[in-house]
């Protein structure tokens, strides 16, 4: 087990290096440069000043030199400075966005798992009944409806028509003067719609998955055995079947780890949430290489760590894997 762990951790480094190499090359392949984005079609910028800007950003060097420079900075945990006109350290830009994205995503993730798993079980247990079909329709509706459209409708209804909820942003104006609890209440009200809509949209995948693994487990011989020996149906389902059916969910949970720092651009744009999605989108659109690379590296790390954790948890939870492989 320890050997396995060490092996897996050592594997992460070449993997990460490979990921950065590929992403670095790919974003540089996209046409346009940060200088272009700031200066193209601007009559007041001469070719000479553009060349100067390129030099300033080190874009005049060959790509491998740029990559070498970037990776050596990264080794010192320095993500560099953004190429956007604000020229701020990339780390600062990311750090100021992460809390809100994490908060939103964690709440949504908890809700998603908390709702989708029971829904999936329910659908599996009452397979092919009206309840099962109703659940299917409901979750697929959430999956199919464009979130931006639903978001706009909800904003109009709850925000403009009924004036129950704030429309966008994460704080009301002047909320910084409110007492501690009221400020949290204010923020909770702002997050209610985004979280609810995000969760609604994500129920389908996990609940269907849960339903199918549950059905698979329920058709196994040991379940039949349990039923045959007269175990109560409730215990069959929640004790014998659920345990095994939940195993693959661990993997899914591991996969969701990198997603925690990612945000949906459309979603954040509509709700005016200052999150990672918008930051990344602007980075890509402005060809802000250090920023894009910074976010991708964090994402890559989380993906790798997430996979590792999932595998470890899996091995921990499932003796078959633990003894079989390691």
């Amino acid at each position, binding site marked *: 087990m320890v050997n396995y762990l060490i092996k897996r951790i050592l594997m992460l480094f070449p993997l990460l290096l490979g990921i950065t190499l590929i992403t670095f090359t790919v974003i540089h392949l*996209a*046409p*346009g440069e940060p200088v*272009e*984005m*700031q*200066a*193209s*079609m*601007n*009559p*007041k*910028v*001469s*070719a000479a*000043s*553009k060349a*100067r*800007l390129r030099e*300033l950003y080190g874009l005049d060097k060959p790509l491998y030199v740029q990559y070498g420079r970037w990776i050596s900075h990264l080794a010192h945990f320095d993500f560099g400075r953004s190429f*956007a*006109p*604000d*020229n*701020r350290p990339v780390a600062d*830009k990311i750090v*100021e*966005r992460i809390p809100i994205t994490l908060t939103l995503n964690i709440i949504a993730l908890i809700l998603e798992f908390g709702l989708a798993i029971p829904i999936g079980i329910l659908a599996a247990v009452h397979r092919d009944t009206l309840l099962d079909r109703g659940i299917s329709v409901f979750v697929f509706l959430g999956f199919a409806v464009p979130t931006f459209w639903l978001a*706009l409708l909800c*904003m*109009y209804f709850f*925000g*403009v028509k009924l*004036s129950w909820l*704030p*429309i*966008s*942003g*994460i*704080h009301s*104006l*002047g909320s910084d003067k409110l007492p501690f609890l009221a400020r949290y209440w204010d923020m909770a009200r702002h997050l209610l719609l985004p979280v609810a809509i995000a969760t609604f949209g994500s129920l389908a995948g996990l609940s269907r998955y849960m339903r199918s693994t549950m059905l698979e487990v329920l058709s196994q011989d040991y379940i039949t055995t349990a039923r045959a020996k007269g175990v109560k149906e409730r215990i069959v389902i929640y004790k014998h079947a659920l345990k095994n059916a939940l195993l693959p969910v661990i993997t899914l949970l591991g996969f969701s780890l990198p997603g925690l720092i990612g945000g949906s651009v459309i979603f*954040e*744009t*509509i*709700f*005016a949430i*200052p999150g990672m999605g*918008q930051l990344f989108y*602007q980075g890509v*659109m402005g*060809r802000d290489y250090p920023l894009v690379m910074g976010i991708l590296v964090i994402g890559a790390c989380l993906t790798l760590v997430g996979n590792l954790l999932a595998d470890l948890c899996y091995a921990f939870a499932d003796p078959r894997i633990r003894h079989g492989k390691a």
Partner: protein
Amino acid sequence: MTLSRLVTLFLVALQLAGCAKGAPEQQQKVRGPAGPPAYGDTLVTGSIGEPSTLIPVLATDSSSGEISGLVYNGLLRYDKNYQLEGDLATSWDVSPDGLKITFHLRHGVKWHDGHDFTSRDVLYTYRVIIDPKTPTAYSEDFKQVQSARAPDPYTFEVVYAKPFAPALASWGMSILPAHLLEGKDITKSPLARNPIGTGPYVFKQWIPLQKVVLEANPDYWEGKPYLSRYVYRIIPDSSTMYMELKAGGLDEMNLSPVQYQRQTNTREFLSRFNKYRYPASAYTYLGYNLRLPLFQDRRVRQAITCAINKEEIIQGVLLGMGQIAHGPYKPGTWAYKPKVDDFGYDPARAAALLKEAGFTMGSDGVLVKDGKRFSFTIMTNQGNDQRLKCALIIQQRLRSVGIEVKIRVMEWASFINNFIDKGQFEAVLLGWTLGQDPDIYDIWHSSKTAPKELNFIHFKDPEVDRLLVEGRGTFDMEQRKKCYYAIQDILAREQPYTFLYVPDALPVVSARVRGIEPAPAGIFYNLIKWYVPKAEQVN
């Protein structure tokens, strides 16, 4: 979304501005007698994009410009009628040979941190702009300066190598505080996120991607602004912004034509908001690649213009919220020639011109010349719905005279790099935002056709070249006007672009805000005089 902002090209004109035929239109319902001007209340305004940096020489986006415009001052500015007036300079003299400009600076102006404003600040600003290490987009105009000096704390002199008329407008550039920046790396200065200026509003707070808060400067030399706070909320989606406006979360925003025409004419809305309408400082055009033999024939370009119904485009795309463009200037500005001999919508004439140019109708309904079908592609950038609609309308009109048009929409960076810069396009549908000085040398002079320069359609006309040089080389308004009038005549005849339309700016402001006086330059020029009567103040 945010892209449409990038697409606003001439980023030079920092102020939202615009106007034409005298009095701009205003739809409003004044509720009761307005109380006397009172201090207090907050104006909350919405913006799609977040400012990039609040050091104006480093920024090119409109959000940064809007906020910097309230925090900083330039030496000169344009008044509500587009006339230059003193800002930090009380007056200025141009030497008779047009080479030397002397600015007499205002006494008693203080930076927001209490330091005195002097000519040292102006000299610093000039030096930092021309410093090759400064990543600024604005150095070109200042490179024409031969020498600059500050003989005493309230005089600033610049000498140009040759008379350069756009110089005056260029001194509208925000002046930076020398005492905070001198000897430091401007790109790493904390002022980028915490600016200290001389302007009517003092920077208070910036929460990234949420809001920027400014507070009235009690010591402002023109008097303390009435509105105590100015909050700039960043709301990246325009539908969300509109709902925020309706729910009371915003006091001011720019409406789209659909919102202006179709969604805001309810009694309830009009009792809460005043809508304004005046021409924006921008135009949209269809430009032809003049390196291609097809478009080198002037008659072909004229024919395309005749075949396009500009009025229909304005109705279809802008719901009537705009006017026909005949040339590169905004109607109502001094350089604009009101009556140019432009080509109107006339399909018969289009057909005649094309026939004259040697085209005959092919069997598939598309014109043919020398065995080649008259077919070309209009390219435009992604994210601008109006341009796409415009291209669709043009496509259908040209089809009816026998020209086949394909439309290609592309992401901005690829569009500029792979197509515009390499000359790999046939026709483009784009727009220019207009600066306040009428000098258009960079777009039309034949020397500006290298890759990455702005005369990317390769327009070359010796007469226009001469007039452009003459126009920027004199301070005599009448002489300049003659030059620009003549240029407009030539452009109307040559049709290197088909000038399509000048859209309207459609701002809406909460009805509790008074003191707004629409003028040719729009409504925002006197923001410091806007007020909310005591009885109506909300926060």
